[in-house]
């Protein structure tokens, strides 16, 4: 880790890209640490992908293919999915790939295969259930804020908005509710705006990377009127902060896994 990384200065014109559109990940990043938001979305400082993130993205893609296959064919072919597994891993590794240590890629790939086989065997969604949408991109225009964009992993037949997460251990429901609240507010709003219907509720499906992998489903109710107001307030606060270039850091436990630690530590060293 370098302690000489620099936090760039922010000008009024440089905040433009950060307000091109809104998304749950932008809002969540802002809520967690405004400096991290500025480094990622204002200064667009790219960071290498961690092995855990790569594995998460890969499994996300495989579950997406599983969903698309059953949607279009009405069934799932394990053989075809395993062919996809090999091709997708190679294709993703050619793109945004982590700096693997010796033998690490093979180990992660084995972990991914075990977890995906667990999914195919114990998927908590009936194969013949027709989804309303898979990896579906929704947008909401508003006079009050930039375009809100969300890509919903899966919308089930009954209108349940489902999101897939990969985690190292099972997350308690209360923690999941808070951790993914911003996303649920955004996705629920987008679903209503795009379908003129009320979502049936939310569902977070965790693919847990324990020694014996497991699939955990946690359900949450549909949004209330108060929830929608909370999102409005959240967006207003975000816009005001970004326009005022309020990029003050929020130090805490999350710094341990922040990709911009070098930039923050560089600032601390210069101050001392």
């Amino acid at each position, binding site marked *: 880790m370098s302690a000489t990384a620099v936090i760039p200065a922010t000008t009024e014109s440089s905040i433009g890209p950060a307000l091109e559109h809104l998304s749950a990940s932008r809002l969540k990043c802002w809520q967690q640490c405004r400096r991290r938001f500025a480094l990622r979305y204002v200064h667009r400082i790219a960071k290498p992908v961690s092995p855990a993130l790569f594995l998460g993205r890969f499994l996300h893609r495989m579950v997406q293919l599983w969903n698309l296959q059953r*949607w*279009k064919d009405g069934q799932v072919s394990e053989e075809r999915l395993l062919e996809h597994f090999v091709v997708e891993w190679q294709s993703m590794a050619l793109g945004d790939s982590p700096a693997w240590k010796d033998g690490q890629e093979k180990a992660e790939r084995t972990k991914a295969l075990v977890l995906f086989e667990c999914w195919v065997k114990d998927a908590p969604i009936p194969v013949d259930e027709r989804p*309303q*949408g*898979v*990896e*579906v*991109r*929704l*947008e909401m225009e*508003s*006079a*009050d804020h930039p375009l809100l964009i969300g890509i919903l992993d899966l*919308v089930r037949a009954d209108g349940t908005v489902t999101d897939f997460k990969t985690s190292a251990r099972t997350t308690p429901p209360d923690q999941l509710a808070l951790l993914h609240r911003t996303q649920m507010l955004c996705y629920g709003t987008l*679903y*209503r*705006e*795009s*379908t*003129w*219907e*009320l979502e049936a509720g939310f569902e977070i499906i965790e693919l847990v990377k324990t020694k014996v992998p497991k699939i955990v489903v946690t359900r949450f109710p549909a949004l209330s*009127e108060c929830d929608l107001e909370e999102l409005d307030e959240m967006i207003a606060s975000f816009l005001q902060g970004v326009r005022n270039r309020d990029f003050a850091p929020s130090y805490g436990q999350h710094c341990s896994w922040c990709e911009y630690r070098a930039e923050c530590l560089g600032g601390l060293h210069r101050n001392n």
Partner: protein
Amino acid sequence: MAVRLIANYSKRLGLPGYSSHQFSVSVETELRDVQDVEGESQRLYQLLQHNVDAQIQSTGFVPEEGYGANGASNENAHSEHSAESENPDTWKCSEKQRNFIQKIVRDNRLDPKEVAVLADELFQLPVQNLNRMQASGLIDALLDQAGKKGGRK
């Protein structure tokens, strides 16, 4: 030095069928008397509120109960679906999506019948009757067919 006062008044009202509409008006004015911020704010607030209230009473199109429901859960929704599918100029998705679907069809020389079959396979609906979420799914499927997935902005 000129002192500017910027005022915005926004109102969102709920409508039947989980919908809502909103309207906001913003003005920017130069203060003649900097001591009168309070008075000028009050005046602008009343002015903007009056104007927003006057306009927002016109609700425009308001969906009936059951609007957009698959399988037409009531008679009204059913007749609305039928009427719309008979009129090829009425699409339920956004104009941007409609233009995009038509562009994909044109650019890739797709047969519109194939598009209709795909919409039917995925959603059991005519293309014109797809809501915005379904249209987004169709766009992905069309781009996928055309081998351009990932190029969507």
